[in-house]
């Protein structure tokens, strides 16, 4: 118990809240065509990529920032941000991990991602993204043997341009909503994954995102393509230093699953949530969308959202192929002044498509949590089913929990079932646990972990442990 208490005390404060002094190259402040050209130029991108960006920027100019979301935030001055920031030493990319800036390696060590050791010991291939650029990818050799491409997207644009050209923007087009379009114009790096036909990726692929420089927005772009009959499980983790101002993170993630392919995408999001009075923290406005393009394909999103001042995202599945399956498992925890507006969209277009949504929301302190989701069964999606369950747990009477599902059924042969409940931890449950020797905080931790179990089970082993701990830590100080 003492150990646990110590551990809690260590973790009580945001442990990833350090920043690293590394010399940066930054694009001039502001957003205009020159900055976009600068980014494209520094990345040595082909002409079509620049065209793609400029097209998105043209569209961006006419779009307005949406304001229908529940968590309101002060207006963001998009001209006051740096759109490109990269560690100086990365200008000429290091060939191997040994050439990396030792300070960078140290940062990742602090984050618990010792890249070198990881390359040897752990069975996970890691791609680390620092501010806006991908700094290191491990396990390359082994993956290449199987024909798997796992590299920074900037590299993929140069080396696998047919693939990128074909799929980039096919799920999230340049004409999409405000933040997605902004990302299309200025994205700097991210991960690219291609799993060839019939290959089952032998290890978990993982990316760590880290915002370091101040006043930068992070705009990364991830593209995952699972070719026929392949399988991949992809993990994503995120942290940022503690700063007083709010920082914008607007990423785009596109998944494409062809016939019989399966993609499992897990996120443990732990951006800096701001301090106890709600000062600072990351605005996490991410667009994640998966397309089940082929028959019998499957995309599954799992997310544990504990960080960020504002989380505003809806990982979605477009179930286009017949018999395709979409899943969404989510735990969102908000404490102090955090706000979250998250959920999913399941768009059924093909026959016999199935989707399942399990969402668990926990709000404590003065936070506010919204589940917002769409289930849309089109008239052609015969024999489709959806099951949705969203449960909310409230702790204290200063927080809020809201559920806003949109349910559209245009097909008489399809079934939709939706349930939602909101409640608090019952006195009896707490009493029962305490009677058996747990202190109130442990009791709450136990009950909350039980409440989230359905979702935690979906996470890969390594992440599940981390997530479980996070769940406990995020709720520190919310009882009693």
């Amino acid at each position, binding site marked *: 118990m003492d150990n646990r208490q110590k551990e809690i005390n260590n973790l009580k404060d945001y442990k990833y809240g350090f920043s690293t002094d590394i010399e940066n190259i930054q694009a001039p402040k502001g957003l205009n065509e020159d900055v976009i050209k600068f980014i494209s130029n520094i990345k040595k991108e082909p002409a079509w990529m620049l065209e793609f960006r400029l097209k998105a920027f043209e569209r961006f100019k006419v779009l307005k920032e949406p304001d229908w979301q529940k968590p309101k935030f002060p207006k963001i001055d998009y001209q006051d941000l740096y759109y490109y920031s990269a560690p100086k030493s990365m200008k000429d990319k290091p060939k191997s991990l040994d050439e990396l800036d030792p300070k960078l390696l140290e940062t990742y060590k602090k984050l618990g991602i010792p890249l070198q050791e990881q390359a040897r010991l752990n069975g996970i291939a890691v791609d680390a993204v620092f501010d806006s650029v991908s700094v290191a990818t491990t396990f390359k050799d082994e993956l290449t043997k199987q024909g798997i491409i796992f590299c920074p997207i900037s590299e993929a644009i140069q080396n696998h341009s047919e693939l990128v050209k074909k799929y980039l923007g096919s799920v999230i087009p340049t004409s999409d909503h405000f933040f997605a379009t902004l990302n299309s114009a200025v994205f700097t790096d991210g991960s690219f994954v291609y799993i060839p036909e019939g290959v089952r990726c032998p290890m978990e692929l993982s990316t760590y995102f880290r915002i370091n420089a101040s006043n930068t927005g992070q705009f990364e772009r991830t593209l995952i393509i699972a070719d026929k009959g392949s399988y991949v499980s992809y993990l994503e983790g995120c942290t940022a230093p503690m700063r007083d101002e709010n920082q914008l993170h607007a990423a785009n993630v596109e998944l494409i699953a062809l016939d019989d392919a399966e993609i499992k995408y897990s996120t443990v999001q732990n951006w800096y949530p701001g301090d106890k009075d709600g000062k600072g923290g990351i605005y996490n406005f991410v667009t994640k969308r998966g397309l089940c393009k082929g028959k019998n394909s499957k995309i599954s999103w799992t997310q544990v959202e504990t960080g960020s001042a504002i989380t505003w995202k809806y990982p979605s599945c477009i179930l286009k192929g017949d018999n395709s399956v979409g899943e969404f498992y989510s735990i969102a925890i908000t404490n102090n002044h955090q706000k979250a507006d998250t959920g999913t969209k399941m768009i059924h277009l093909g026959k016999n498509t199935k989707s399942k949504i399990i969402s668990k929301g926990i709000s404590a302190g003065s936070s506010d949590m919204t589940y917002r989701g769409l289930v849309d069964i089109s008239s052609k999606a015969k024999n489709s089913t959806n099951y949705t369950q969203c449960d909310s747990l409230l702790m204290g009477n200063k927080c809020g929990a809201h*559920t806003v599902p949109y349910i559209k059924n*245009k097909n008489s042969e399809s079934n939709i079932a*939706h349930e939602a*409940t*909101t409640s608090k931890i019952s006195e009896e449950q707490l009493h029962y646990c305490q009677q058996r020797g747990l202190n109130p905080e442990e009791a709450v931790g136990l009950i909350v972990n039980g409440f989230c179990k359905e979702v935690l089970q979906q996470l890969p082993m390594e992440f599940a442990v981390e997530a479980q701990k996070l769940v406990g830590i995020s709720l520190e100080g919310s009882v009693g």
Partner: protein
Amino acid sequence: MKEQLQKDFNSSIKNLSLSQKDIEIKKFCLDNFIEKGFPNRKEEDWKFSDLNQIIKNNIGELSFYNDQAFTNKVDTSVFVDGLEHNKIVFINGRIEKIDFEYEKKDQIEIIDQSETINEFKNSNSLSDLNNAFTNKCFKILVKKGYQLIKPLIIYHTTNSKIWSKNINLRLNFELDKDSSLRLIDLFNDTSEKNFLNIFYNFELKENAVLKNYKVDKFENKNVKYSFNNIDQDKNSISETFILSSGSNFSKNEINCNLNGVYASAFVNGVFSLNNDKHHEIRSIINHLTENTKSYQLIKSVLDQSSKAVYQGKIFVNSDAQKTDGYQLSKAILLNKESEFNAKPELEIYADDVKCSHGSASGSLNEDSIFYLMSRGLSYQQSRELLINGFLLDVVEKITDSEIKNLIKNMIGIKE
């Protein structure tokens, strides 16, 4: 449309003896409406039913002026048989008869309220339209401790004398302490292509009981919007039942404010639609204080290319501990062209609450049909039996047995 509105507005106020101030208020409302126009899908509350489009497609050009100089003959054949009741009769938007023959005269007061200050806290443009064009507004006050012996039926009749018209109605009710009222709204339309815009305001004092049954059963080609605002004090009960079936388009909105402790609200609804009908129920239950309760049950049976929408919201204020809120919507889609949309919403700021909602939609259960057919029923019979049972569930929620039987007969539901 702007010129038409201005012209009709001028002719309509000419016939009314209003003070300068009242005219100004009406004018203000008119300007508001002109600015906003009919609600369209860009507004969140009208996302699933674009009224602007619906009026364009169903009616085309609307005119807003109703010449109410002439009385209409009251057709007694529409009156409900076998149930003694009090009556208010609207014909083409004009009040023709107010008759509380079964009640103690001194216990009910009918007050002519023609001032048009907008009391509604809803922001949609239709309340402005209503305010600008209603010419008579009555308030019915049920005095302290009086419980109406017989139900009140409000007949909303329109006949073929009018078409492409907008009719605006407004009634206010006040139920004083310990009083009760059973109210049935019965729609009887033989007209076509009119837009009815009806606003009711209910004020329920301590221990008051309101039971409101809205029955739109007869086939007609009108477009209807009805808004009920219910304010509830301590211990009061409101029960609303909606049968939504006859009109081409209909949207019923219930806004219920549970202001007093132990107040409770019940909203039950049945959609039974065919052809190209498009109906919606939107309910907002605001739990504003402790120990309040709400219960909602909406069931739909949708045939041909009909469309039903249910938007239900439970709002729980941070003071409203011990709230009990429940909401369930179920739909059976009989035809591949039919459509059901739902947005069951919870907005909760208090932690010691029990709130849940459920929504399900799909086809008739094949296993159940098989079960019935294996016992000798035809396919058609089994289908009817299942639908009957499905809807009976909601009708059984009606707490007044006399009216329950009346409504059962009206929609042909057997026990």
